[in-house]
């Protein structure tokens, strides 16, 4: 090798390395790097009890480090003989949006950029055409005459399109009917967001912002533990509450009692009473064949 060829080669190499560094520069924006264990973690369904205990402890440490609040992260398993169903009374909903914000508070959703699992649509009387829905209403008083209000969230479909399109099986339907996401397995491709006909799925474009004094420390692995940048999230029927036997947060705050939740397989449940006795039911976009577990009804 002579000087000329040395200089040339080194020049080409320097160029190559510089171009590589420049093209990788967006990675510097990625603020939370996965630890080695997090990166090598198995899929939720393959985790043993010991693995899960370690994962939960790691999550508790991470949340405490970031928010200075020690959470209690659990892994709730589905109960036998339970299939969750939601019934929403459209005669009673007044469109106050308290459910939206109660959900945000319970499930540790990002405030800035804003993520809200529930979207309330103001619909004119006489139509269920969702294109006529307005989600930006802000009058002085609700309800407004001539309109009804329809909150839309994940419908936990029996035939979920989002589950079908996920390339990594990071989202699936659990035996109790809830469509869940393993946040550590999701690669953030957003196919599920494209497939969902209800705009149920939300993506974390940046690292979520949760105010420290409003964080909910009762968390679960598949539910309301804080997510990271680049993963999908959505309504999971407050899995940390409902699998412990409680009502979801949106139901607990509704001032009109429009929301009803329960086990459809229990003949004495409220939802069975509704499905047996009320007469007008709507499943959104029924023609798409998603078979939602979310029933809207009128009190007639």
């Amino acid at each position, binding site marked *: 090798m002579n000087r000329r060829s040395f200089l040339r080669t080194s020049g080409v190499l*320097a160029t190559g390395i510089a171009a590589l560094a*420049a093209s990788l520069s967006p990675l510097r924006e990625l603020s939370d790097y996965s630890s080695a264990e997090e990166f090598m973690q198995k899929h939720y369904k393959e985790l043993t009890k010991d693995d899960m205990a370690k994962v939960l402890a790691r999550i508790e440490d991470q949340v405490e480090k970031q928010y200075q609040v020690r959470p209690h992260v659990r892994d709730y398993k589905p109960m036998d003989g339970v299939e969750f169903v939601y019934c929403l009374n459209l005669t009673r909903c007044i469109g106050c949006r308290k459910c939206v914000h109660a959900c*945000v508070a319970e499930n540790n959703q990002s*405030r800035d950029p804003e993520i809200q699992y529930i979207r309330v649509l103001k619909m004119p009387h006489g139509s269920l055409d969702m294109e006529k829905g307005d989600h930006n209403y802000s009058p002085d*008083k609700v309800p407004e005459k001539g309109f009804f209000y329809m909150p839309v969230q994940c419908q936990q479909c029996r035939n979920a399109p989002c589950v079908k399109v996920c390339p990594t099986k990071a989202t699936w339907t659990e035996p109790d009917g809830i469509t869940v996401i393993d946040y550590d397995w999701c690669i953030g491709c957003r196919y599920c967001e494209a497939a969902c006909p209800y705009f149920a799925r939300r993506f974390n474009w940046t690292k979520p912002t949760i105010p420290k004094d409003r964080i909910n420390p009762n968390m679960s692995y598949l539910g309301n533990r804080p997510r990271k940048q680049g993963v999908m999230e959505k309504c999971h029927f407050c899995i940390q509450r409902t699998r412990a*036997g409680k009502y979801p947060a949106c139901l607990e705050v509704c001032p009109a009692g429009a929301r009803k939740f329960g086990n459809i397989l229990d003949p004495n449940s409220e939802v069975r009473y509704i499905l047996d006795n009320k007469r007008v039911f709507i499943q959104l976009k029924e023609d798409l064949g998603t078979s939602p577990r979310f029933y809207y009804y009128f009190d007639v």
Partner: protein
Amino acid sequence: MDGKKTNLALAGVALGFLVLAGVFARDLPGRSVAPTPPIPLVDLKFIDPTPNRVSIAVNLRKGADASDYDCYVCHERNKPLKLNIGPDGDVIVPSEHKDIVMAHGEHKRNNNCFNCHDENNLDKLQTRDGRVLKLTDLSPASTPQLCGSCHGPTYRDWEAGVHGRTSGYWNRQMGDYSRLSCVSCHNPHSPRFQGRQPAPGPHRLHPPATVPAVQPERAE
């Protein structure tokens, strides 16, 4: 092709890339998106599950003065009251009870005080089929007896847990659940749910003023 020109060209390209790398590393062009103002946190009143109203029973349980609800401070015992009906057929509420606004029923059909109150015994309530309930004992089990004596289907739904909010545990084996009495949500004199201010809607990236005025024939 070998020689000085090639070397020069390569050196020039390499220098160009090094400069570009430096530019990206230092983030000199900056972000082209204008920073948006921070989204305010929601007012805590919008996540408060407290029911619509504080009924007399709840107020008494919290330690309110029971003498506020003693009718015989003003009224005489054993003197049956008469209603004043105005020219439009609507009851005239005496000025001492001016805080009561009567609007019960469509077209105020049920604005007769003694449909519910007992004119002979003011601290009792009466149903049309003769049941008698104490005014101050409005426990979750008793008001629905009065309201349910006319509003049957609603009462049936309430008993099943479907009218009004049921809180607590859906799984009754794992914990307790609680129901609310009718008057925790409905004012018995003007039962219709009042309108209220809604919580703020989803944050809009572009304020409404920047949306063009000409819209197609559908909602945004």
